[in-house]
């Protein structure tokens, strides 16, 4: 008995000499979950509620308008030309090609005498999730408060617009490169483009002319009546069309059920270990969340990330594009700053940056890993012919861009290859599987009878 007791006591004493709490080999994924949830919480990235159900009649009217080339002066492009469901509501091009171009998607080519639209066409995926800034330079916004829409200089919007997305929908029909065409243009039937002949400043006249086109078609009259019961045709303005377009875009392009979204609402198994590790990098070492934060992982600020200067340029700075600095020249940090894009479904919205400089997420992550070096050594040969010639790779431009490079990425991130891969894995976890195939939103025909796809 005595020896047995002594032996047990010795064993127990030996156990007592171990560390007081030793997590020698913790279940790694379990620890990851806890750490990740805490990390995410610090950046205001909360789950998303569903968007409000849109009026079906508005959605149907908007669907027709979205795919109908009748809204373009030359009847050759529609909203879907640059926001093609087959290209995840973008166009898969570095720089968009508006009216006068031929082909669709990545195969679209410039028409004679036309030029690229200066900035990459953003995907319309999840644009209805309540953003406060639209366009790369945020020139349509509600930073003055909800319902107080701010628009580009010289554009006054009519009342009755439902939201920021509707306000945005008022603008492409005014833009000569995108939809309206140039003076003297003839449409695809050889008729004079009456929209193009209206002076640029006469915005209401342009919108009224577009509405005359629409309401000349009986089917559109019926669709407007269904969407706006009780509103006489004579009282309909282009803002009614814009509201319908916005309703359709919200209904058709809201895709917010990614693995990350499921993780956010408690499903710890929605993401793989690599995706979670990538998320930890995103919200930590890689500093992505210092810009891409909040519920939408971006969309609320502007940054000069050292994106290569590509395109014909915008405004007074042309052929350069100084982004938000064009509107706020007095604020140096806005020079070459563009909107921080919301990131849900980012996997599907290549090419990336305002000039469409990078074709893959891997390339984007490499860029951020050392933005200074990536900007200096950008290889324009990866760009499509035509766009390649619009790359401004001279030393003066590079210096100018890097001069106001965002302070958060001035130092290299020093991400390893594995970390870069994990970061990309996380970015891909932001994809809603339902966003991969948007073909169901495409109508079989439009009221004008024009072709939906060439």
């Amino acid at each position, binding site marked *: 008995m005595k020896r047995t007791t002594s032996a047990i006591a010795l064993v127990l004493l030996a156990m007592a000499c171990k560390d007081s709490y030793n997590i020698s080999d913790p279940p790694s994924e379990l620890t990851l979950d806890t750490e990740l949830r805490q990390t995410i919480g610090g950046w205001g990235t909360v789950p998303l509620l569903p968007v409000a159900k849109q009026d079906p009649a508005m959605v149907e009217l908007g669907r027709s308008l979205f795919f109908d080339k009748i809204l373009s002066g030359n009847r050759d492009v529609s909203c879907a030309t640059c926001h093609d469901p087959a290209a995840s509501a973008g166009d898969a091009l570095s720089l968009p090609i508006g009216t006068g171009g031929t082909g669709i998607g990545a195969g679209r080519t410039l028409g004679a005498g036309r030029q690229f639209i200066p900035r990459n066409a953003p995907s319309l995926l999840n644009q209805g999730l309540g953003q406060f800034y639209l366009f790369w330079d945020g020139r349509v916004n509600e930073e003055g408060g909800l319902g107080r829409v701010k628009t580009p200089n010289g554009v006054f919007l009519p009342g009755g617009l439902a939201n920021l997305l509707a306000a945005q929908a008022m603008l492409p029909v005014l833009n000569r490169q995108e939809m309206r065409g140039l003076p003297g243009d003839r449409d695809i039937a050889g008729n004079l483009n009456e929209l193009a002949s209206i002076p640029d400043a006469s915005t209401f006249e342009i919108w009224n002319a577009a509405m005359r086109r629409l309401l000349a078609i009986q089917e559109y009259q019926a669709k407007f009546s269904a969407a706006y019961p009780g509103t006489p045709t004579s009282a309909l303005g282009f803002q009614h069309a814009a509201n319908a377009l916005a309703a359709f875009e919200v209904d058709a392009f809201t895709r917010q059920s990614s693995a990350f979204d499921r993780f956010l609402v408690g499903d710890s198994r929605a993401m793989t270990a690599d995706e979670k590790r990538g998320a930890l990098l995103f919200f930590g070492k890689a500093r992505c969340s210092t810009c891409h934060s909040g519920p939408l992982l971006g969309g609320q600020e502007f940054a000069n990330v050292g994106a290569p200067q590509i395109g014909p340029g915008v405004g007074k700075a042309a052929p350069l594009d100084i982004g938000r600095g064009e509107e706020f020249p007095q604020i140096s940090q806005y020079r070459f700053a563009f909107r921080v894009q919301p990131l849900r479904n980012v996997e599907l919205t290549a090419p990336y940056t305002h000039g469409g400089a990078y074709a893959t997420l891997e390339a984007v992550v490499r860029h951020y890993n050392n933005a200074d070096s990536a900007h200096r050594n950008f290889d324009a040969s990866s760009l499509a012919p035509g766009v390649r010639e619009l790359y401004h790779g001279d030393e003066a431009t590079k210096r100018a861009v890097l001069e106001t490079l965002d302070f958060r990425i001035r130092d290299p991130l020093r991400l390893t290859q594995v970390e870069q891969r994990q970061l990309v894995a996380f970015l891909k976890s932001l994809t809603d*599987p339902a966003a991969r195939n948007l073909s169901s939103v495409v109508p079989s025909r439009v009221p004008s009878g024009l072709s939906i796809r060439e």
Partner: protein
Amino acid sequence: MTTRTLGASGHAGSWRQARAAVWWIAFCSAAPAALSAAHAQVIAVRTAPIADGGQFTFLPSANLGMGGLSIALADSTLDPFVNPAKASRLRGARVFGSPAFFSVSREAGGGLTLPIGTSVSSGAWFSQFVVAMQEVEPGGPDDEGTFFTGTTALDAGMADVEDEKPSRQNRYLHATLGRRVGNRGLAIAASASWWGLHAMDGVELYYPGSQSVRQSGDALDLRLGAYKEWRGQSLEALVVHNRLGMNQDVAFSDLFWNPSLRQIEVIPRTEPNADRVETWGLHLGYTRLLSDSAWRVGGSLTANRIRQPRMPNYELPLVPADDGSAHAYNLGVGIARTGAAWTFGVDAILEPIWSRSWDRAAEATETRTGTPIDAGATTLDNRFRFTNGILRGGVSTTSELSTTTALSFEFGGQWRGMRYRLEQQDAIRESANASTQSWNEWTRSWGMSLRFPGGDLRYRGSLTTGGRRPGVDTPDGVILEDALSSSRPGFAVPFRSFVTTTFDDVRVTVHQISLSVGLR
């Protein structure tokens, strides 16, 4: 059951279903071991160093100050609650009261219990009755989670929740009835203990971010014991059935981005949880005097079969499981020496435990590589293998103040070492992994007793370290209004976003004062 999905091919399922339960916390926080107030016969299965707050350490114990010695050294006041047949050693009639206080540092819990009881022995029959009321303080700061201000939506969301003030009071009833059989020192007895529960210590802490936890349930502990003494030897046998049924309605205020309103919105949510634990146990104990008659040695064997058919979905996602079971054993030896002035004792206990918990697919799903998994199939299998150890020691010294009064001082300590290996098989990920964890807990105890004609007055205290409690950490001075004003409209970073879950070292302190008076 939980819903498990993977990657793009999966489908969302219900995230609330998917929130996994935690096997270890279920056993730790609502363990019938704690409820039994007799810790030797119902074995606690713990897979993390969650501190046992001492909520149920209130029945008077003579040995608590000596590290809780229980094998070779009889505990004259606690033993009758452990094995009702041991109440046969009580003579005459007595009443007692033993107010007990417990507190967990870092504001992680605390409470007060006021039990009163009586024991009566008449002829061959003996009995005990105890009633107790208990008030338990919620773990964590009182105003935790009530810091949202700034928007109508937030205020409206909070209003419903703040009005709820769940009861924090528990009730306890205990009855023992036994009979001495013949004149050969044999006694048999049965006891029943019932808890009406509205507050289990620390449960709120397992739901970090919750606004309140409304608990209700009860626990029943039934014991049938036999005890025999003969020629310096004793033998006991005990069968225990212990069952716990708790419902926990947890109120949350979830934060969501509302695309339509374009603001972060607080949406109240109440999540019902249930905790069901059933334990069957068998305990055998033997002691005998050694030849010099001052030394006593003893041994004990306890076996438990534990089932947990329902587990709460605690907010600390560690080891997902729907339900589980365990086989737990407790083998102990002890030695004690009782002298006129000094008493000394040591217990050494080995606790091997085999535990398993599992997670089932709520609906048909598939593995990472696309192999179908039927609804109801096991998707995660957790197997624990514990090798725990307990070492207790204590000493007491008694001074005769007069022929009828004596003063005693007790000191002691306990080391509890936990070590386990977890092997997990994940059918969805088609992966397996293993991990090992261990930790130690130390208890220092002390006491003082005054024996006087017709009764005794005791004070016992203990301090346990090595355990931890989940908590939340919030930075000073951050409120939602600040965040709102410093951000883009509607893109405020909510206060809760700054809250991080912590797992803090805590100290558990128990104080117990008992007064026992004989009735003439």
